[in-house]
């Protein structure tokens, strides 16, 4: 009941915040094809967020919008990675590369969840994240192997985002409580290392020197960025309380 909802909330918040970040690219991408591609990925993430939040909210009698628009910052459960600013295109690709390599095995395993609703949401989501994985992989290779500038930027992008890898794979008491309804984050780390490692090796990129940052998102302790994201996202809901849209 409540534990599974708490777990779904994490997944929903990750996807929601990532969608919010990616949404900013639409009309600002380096080429029209990327306006479309990043728009697609944002839409997918937003779709996943809505499914997870609707499911989480059903345990508490709250709608997806009540959860998205009326929680205070410490009630959000997103990991710091998803809150990081877009930066340049390379930074966004670095964030996508990490996110997709985390979400793909996560959703694949979650599609075997003992919770049928989580399993169903994940089974649909994993197919879409498969495309996100391919999109980010192709761009990591292109930027690393393109020009000197693009390589430098790709390295800088990875340096900005890699510190937030650690938090994604941390286990905590909630994970134990949801048991086979969820997926143990640490159990996905080896596959993440392998899948990212293969691409990074092909691109001749080294991320081993980047220190890990302290997380805290799962406990409601966020980066300094989330407050700004929420101020913008929630502004109308807060300005016109009680209104429907």
């Amino acid at each position, binding site marked *: 009941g409540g534990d599974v909802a708490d777990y779904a909330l994490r997944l929903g918040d990750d996807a929601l915040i990532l969608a919010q970040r990616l949404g900013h690219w*639409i009309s*600002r991408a380096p080429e*029209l094809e990327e306006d479309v591609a990043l728009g697609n990925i944002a839409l997918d993430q937003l779709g996943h967020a*809505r499914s997870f939040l609707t499911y989480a909210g059903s345990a508490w009698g709250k709608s997806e919008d009540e959860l998205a628009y009326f929680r205070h910052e410490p009630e959000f459960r997103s990991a710091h990675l998803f809150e990081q600013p877009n930066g340049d295109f390379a930074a966004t690709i670095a964030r996508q590369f990490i996110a997709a390599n985390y979400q793909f095995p996560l959703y694949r395993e979650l599609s075997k969840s003992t919770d049928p609703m989580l399993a169903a949401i994940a089974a649909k989501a994993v197919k879409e994240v498969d495309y996100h994985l391919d999109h980010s992989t192709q761009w990591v290779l292109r930027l690393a192997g*393109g*020009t000197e500038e*693009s390589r430098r930027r790709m390295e800088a992008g990875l340096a900005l985002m890699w510190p937030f890898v650690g938090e994604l794979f941390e286990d905590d008491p909630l994970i134990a409580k949801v048991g086979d309804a969820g997926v143990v984050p640490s159990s996905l780390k080896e596959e993440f290392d392998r899948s990212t490692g293969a691409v990074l090796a092909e691109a001749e990129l080294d991320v081993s020197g980047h220190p890990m940052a302290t997380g805290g998102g799962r406990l409601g302790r966020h980066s300094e960025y989330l407050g700004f994201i929420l101020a913008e996202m929630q502004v*109308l809901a807060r300005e016109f309380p009680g209104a*429907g849209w």
Partner: protein
Amino acid sequence: MEALTPEDAAGQENFDRIIAKDSRVEPKDWMPEAYRRSLVRQISQHAHSEIIGMQPEANWITRAPSLKRKSILMAKVQDEAGHGLYLYSAAETLGTTRDEMMDALVAGKARYSSIFNYPTVTWADMGAIGWMVDGAAICNQVPLCRASYGPYGRAMVRVCKEESFHQRQGFEILLELANGTPAQRAMAQDAVNRWYAPSLMMFGPPDDDSPNSKQSMAWNIKRFSNDELRSRFVGMLAEQVKVLGLTLPDDEIRFNEDTKKWEHGPLDWEEFKEVLAGRGPCNAQRLERRRSAHADGAWVREAAAAYAAKQAAKQSSTNAQKAAA
């Protein structure tokens, strides 16, 4: 006028026959230079309008007040990028590259629909743009599905199908607001007031002040005059605004039983010309945003090209080795 070569004469004859039959001109067909130029101008202007038109709506993606609306809005703006892609492709079949068109846009040398130089200041503008701006676009574009140039007509078929979704979604936004709190209702009415005249002016100047229209109609690109389309559009608005329970800021709208046409009050064509001349509220902002997105993305496009060239070189050297083995 210069004398035509025999090839040109044959081409012109074929072209005239196609137009007379109201059939389709295809990229490989001979066509008059003026027809080609006119089409490139019109299609690229349309493509630019889709691209610039993303901005006023993208402005609200991060602030959309419900997740459902956010999703619909994101999809809509993304569709506009898609429309831009179809249309640039159609224009490319006429021998002008997307890069050339994009360069003209960011250099401020190409036009786009002036309506996008107005700001979207409230959420209700997402409704008004969908209902009125997309509505006007549909009135303009549905006849273009039969445009004599094949690739353009076919692109418009896809565009129109999506636009009609967008219009319905815009109408729904306004309907929700009109039935909401007093503040929401006021927001909806304000948006309708602001977008009404600019949307009517999207059809271009009155017929007696529209020099290019006649040639476009002769070439079967344009099918109806500006005023004819505007009149149809006003009729549509006048009917639908009743469902919304809102009003249009024009006391003179009426159906003329004699002409069987809808009429409307006078429009401020001076304002239209001002905005067209670059003196609207957002001209500088729209162009600057496109320019900076284009400039900021240059290194990405260069990287993609460099990578593709390296991959191609690698591939051909592999092939050469295989052939040698």
